[in-house]
């Protein structure tokens, strides 16, 4: 099981600002190891962010998203104390779901 994501969800005005950092190798399948063998691709393919049962962002990714992917976006309709849930699944079927509580922000 992959390491937990780091998720921050803060109110900015009437919007929830979400920043997430996922722990993942994001291997392209093009890189060679020290012995010259190709390292098989291993990358997150789908990311879904939900709030109150509604999807607020869904993404499909290729191999060219950086290692330990970062994602930042904003949505309307959230309130402090509510949860934002982020899930990902990679090309090997590994998956991870984490949630964060919306903070009132500054």
């Amino acid at each position, binding site marked *: 099981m992959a390491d937990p994501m780091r998720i921050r969800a803060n109110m900015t005005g009437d919007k929830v600002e979400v920043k997430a950092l996922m722990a993942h190798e994001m291997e*392209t399948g093009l890189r060679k190891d020290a012995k010259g063998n190709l390292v098989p691709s291993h990358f997150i393919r789908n990311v879904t962010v939900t709030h109150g049962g509604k999807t607020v962002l869904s993404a*499909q990714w*290729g191999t060219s*998203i*950086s290692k330990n992917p970062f994602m*930042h976006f904003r949505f309307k309709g959230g309130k402090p104390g509510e949860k934002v849930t982020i899930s990902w699944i990679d090309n090997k079927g590994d998956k991870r779901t984490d949630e964060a509580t919306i903070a009132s922000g500054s």
Partner: protein
Amino acid sequence: MDAKRREVLKTGGGVLALAAATGILKPGEGLAQEWNKAAFDTRSVSDTIKALGGSGSSPSGAIEITAPDIAENGAVVPVAVESKLPRTQAIAILIEKNPNTLSAEFEIPAGTDPFVSTRVKMAETSNVYALVIADGKYFHAVKEIKVTIGGCGG
């Protein structure tokens, strides 16, 4: 797309079906989502747009790409895209000179700002396209990012 490539695609599908059959991938569980393999396999901007369902795209001044002019490290290039086009449904990031053009596609439901920011890998200096689907139409903006150290080498 040549015949050999089709063979590879078929085999890929077979592996997925096998994974599903053996219960590695449980259908309908959690994130049961499609992944547009055809789009992520494309090797040019025009092919990617086609694979994403468009016939072409128009340049738009209402799309803003925020990224460095020069990336010191191609492995981590911050790219943000903001669309001011009404009814923006999706934002995709395309890197023309990467081995595979399409980097990411974000679907933007109503209520979510037409803005995404992430970090991408770039093999070499390239034009980066932000493709926006708004009200069923395809638009793009482009920005060249110079890379001094590639991000896909080993």
